[in-house]
């Protein structure tokens, strides 16, 4: 027995195993965005109360706070639909991983029993099944990428709302300082989500 690790372990995951790793990373990023989206909802609710207290001086801020609350709801919905796609993709990639494992073992059998006709037939049937898995996964990749892009566009809109809230905060008279602090927090959080989504868009999973 040797203590040396096999090449496959040293080289790290590849193929479907690498896809699975990427998709797990995407899922973690989405979970963090969903948590942040929930935070915006609470912040927007507090901002609405603050604007009410500020009265006519913060009317514009109040309107924007309502919009930000609506934005956070839309963002959560988008992220939940992304979650459904992620789960379907994890299913697809896991099936590919098992398929690829079996194919590897059958390929090893071919090396040892190259003339077995039935083995070739089984491998051909499996290749067809593999093509179907691959095609389904390809569709899921596209749908996921498209949903991430939709979420990104939504977050750009959220960014505009947060910046407008910052401007409106300046007209908040005696509440200006509190409103500026809240709108600054909005802006920071939206920026955080934008960075997360940007990372998602660059995931190697979409290049597979």
């Amino acid at each position, binding site marked *: *027995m040797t203590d040396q690790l096999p090449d496959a372990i040293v080289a790290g995951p590849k193929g479907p195993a690498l896809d699975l790793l990427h998709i797990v990373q995407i899922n973690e990023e989405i979970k963090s965005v969903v948590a942040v989206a929930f935070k915006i909802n609470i912040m927007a609710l507090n901002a609405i109360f603050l604007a009410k207290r500020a009265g006519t001086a913060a009317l514009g801020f109040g309107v924007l706070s309502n919009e930000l609350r609506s934005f956070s709801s839309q963002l959560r919905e988008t992220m939940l639909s992304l979650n459904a796609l992620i789960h379907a993709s994890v299913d697809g990639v896991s099936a590919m991983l098992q398929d690829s494992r079996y194919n590897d*073992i059958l390929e*090893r*059998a071919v090396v*040892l*029993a190259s003339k077995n006709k*039935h*083995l070739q037939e*089984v491998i051909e049937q*499996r290749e067809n099944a593999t093509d179907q898995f691959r095609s389904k996964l390809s569709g899921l990749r596209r749908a996921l990428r498209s949903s991430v892009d939709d979420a990104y566009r939504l977050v750009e809109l959220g960014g505009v709302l947060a910046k407008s809230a910052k401007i409106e905060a300046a007209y908040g008279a005696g509440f200006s300082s509190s409103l500026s602090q809240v709108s600054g927090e909005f802006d920071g959080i939206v920026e955080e989500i934008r960075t997360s989504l940007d990372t998602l868009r660059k995931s190697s999973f979409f290049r597979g």
Partner: protein
Amino acid sequence: MKTTQTIFQDGDHKWLAIVRDPAKADFLIDTNEYLITHGGQGMLLDPGGLEIFPAVFSAVATEFDPSAISAIFASHQDPDVISSLALWLEFNPQLRCHVSWMWSGFIPHFGGVASTFAPIPDEGMTISLAGLSLQAVPAHYLHSSGNHNLYDRTAKMFFSGDIGAALLPADQQGLFVKDFSTHIRHAEGFHRRWMGSNEAKHQWCSRVSQLDIDMLCPQHGAIYQGEDVQRFINWFDSLQVGVLRA
């Protein structure tokens, strides 16, 4: 690649032993697989783990059409016994897997559909292979809690699963036991530790002593033949099992 050796033949009724792969990684326990053929059909006994599927498949294919394997007999649920099930099903999706009822809900985790599994009751049962009657013989707690051996009365061949197993050194890899007293030293530690019940062991020895057996074929190690069969049963009967140290 493993080699295939015919250990019994009477017309198209055969027992093939699929054994000893020099290319096998050391960290995998060595296993013996057996193929019974009769009337153009085959039954594979303890087909082995996923990792050794290529070696077993290629060895079987040298002697028999793998797509004609209509049944698998799994003595119990261990991965070295049956984790290759999904790949054998690729060659014959109608293949039946005979296994203790206890494991018929566990082994599907390796593959198969509901109709794949033919549960064996605790008391054993007769299994037919193209008209050849084979008897599933209870061997519970030796070592698995749901465990069967397979007896071919016509051929006087007995597949004993883990019972009779020996962990042989590299320089003693013969297919048959040549010198019982030397061989049994490699079986002692295995039986003391893996076999969990002295009572079950006594019952098994009493049951199997009544059968007419020419060869006792374990899943690991070498095959006992002739007088070594009863010699093994007597040795096993007097061995204290279910202990951590000898």
